[in-house]
């Protein structure tokens, strides 16, 4: 059986990849994709921990899965809104390069 720690290390690696993407990419669409990677890393962690619980503690062994469902819901809402904002940005400024979107930069 694969131990819990293997899934946790995998999720840490995926989260680090997502952080690199958010910090190093300049296209807004690619930044949203990297955020999706980070959210998936969190979901792997939650579900791995949930399925390794024996159900005798404070948390029942499906609570992690339910929180993961909520994270997926919020991620769907986030992508919808984010894409609307990116479309608006592209229409107004003709670019999706976040380095050029400096209207609110003082």
């Amino acid at each position, binding site marked *: 059986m694969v131990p819990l720690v293997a899934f946790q290390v995998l999720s840490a690696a995926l989260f680090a990849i997502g952080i690199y993407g958010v910090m190093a990419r300049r296209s807004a669409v690619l930044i949203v994709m990297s955020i999706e990677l980070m959210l998936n890393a969190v979901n792997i962690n939650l579900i791995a921990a949930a399925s390794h619980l024996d159900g005798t503690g404070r948390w*029942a062994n499906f609570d992690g899965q339910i929180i993961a469902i909520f994270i997926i819901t919020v991620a769907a809402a986030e992508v919808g809104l984010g894409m609307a904002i990116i479309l608006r940005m592209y229409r107004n400024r003709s670019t999706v390069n976040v380095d050029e979107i400096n209207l609110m930069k003082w």
Partner: protein
Amino acid sequence: MSWFLFIILAVFTLGGGLGVVVTRNVVHAALFLLVSLVAVAGLYLILFAEFLALVQVLIYGGAIIIVLIFAIMLTRTAEYPYISDNKQWPLAAVAAAAVGVVLGAAFLDNNHSQTTPNSPAFADLANSLFTTWAIPFEVASLVLLVALIGAIIIARTGEDSR
């Protein structure tokens, strides 16, 4: 057998993730993201979370990737290959490696759970979702509604609305 599947799925997950942050073609990045997300659905199956695997394929593989590809299509610019990485990428790599090492070390250090994965019944999941978590569930539906309306208002062209 379980290790074998885990290693294959981990390679696809991390490889897809690296593809997303490394490739210069934004459409390829979306397809790499799809590979990574479907591999994560496979990981959920190893963990006996069948419902989550289904939701992952439906929502991530179906809806979110389609929305991302639509956004790429509607904002297609010639600048995409040139704006993939910015100049601070070495700093970003160092920061990401630091976070990954610290998180991984924390998980390895805290390694005392040796239980085997088990599967909650579907009925228990549904009971918990609609009793204990009923209010968060309703709030989540409200969040989706607000996000939908907000997305429509933000993305609308605006000539006929003012």
